[in-house]
């Protein structure tokens, strides 16, 4: 198996909010991904660690914010990006 060169990886910070913070048992973490990874790749990596997140994604849905903007699953992530996972709003 070949070693992955450090430059070929990026680090993004991921904030978990409300119900998702409870689900992941934390509010923030740094995730390492291969350069060129998308939001979908990030979610897949998180889902591989948490069946609970998979259930929530399927049953309720999650809103992904990257650097303050709502983002689609095909958005490519860059080193240092700030990602936030939000559940659907429930104000009022």
């Amino acid at each position, binding site marked *: 198996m070949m070693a992955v060169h450090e430059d070929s990886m990026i680090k993004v910070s991921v904030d978990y909010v409300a119900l998702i913070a*409870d689900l992941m048992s934390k509010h923030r973490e740094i995730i390492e991904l291969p350069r060129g990874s998308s939001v979908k790749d990030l979610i897949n990596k998180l889902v591989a660690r948490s*069946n609970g997140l998979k259930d929530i994604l399927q049953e*309720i849905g999650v809103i992904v914010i990257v650097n303050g903007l709502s983002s689609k699953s095909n958005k490519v992530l860059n080193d240092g990006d700030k990602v936030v996972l*939000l559940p659907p*709003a429930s*104000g*009022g």
Partner: protein
Amino acid sequence: MKKEANRELHASIIKDELDIRRIIDEMISQSEEEGALVMFLGFVKGAVDGVKVMKLKFEAYEPLASNKLAEIVRQESKGCKDVRVFHRVGELNPRDPIIYIFVSAKDRHTAFETAKRLLERAKHEVPIFKLEVREDGEYWVVGDNRRVKRSELGSEKRM
């Protein structure tokens, strides 16, 4: 408060209760050709499906929540002289006010319809999250009515 072409537009995420009478008096005193003021107040239920509610805990994801609420007010205030929307966060008790919507316009149809649109968008688009503390446990409220029991969250518990 923001003045915009002789209009008053306001959106805030707040902690404390508002003085409703003062705001209504201010809106009416600043009116000219308006003759309608609609106010909506959403408050904490005392029970849900027969189960006593102890508290509602609201958290907002900022600054996104404030920015989104302001955007909704700007987009939905067409034809209205004065629009003010306030959403509370923190721990609220049964019957405490949660969301206040004030709209003044020349006619009642515009005022009612604007208030309705503001309410629906504020509930569904502003990143504010609600934890219901009830006699039978704590529940995250998702969307309009779906509830997820907090003690059942955590990856191990759902596996």
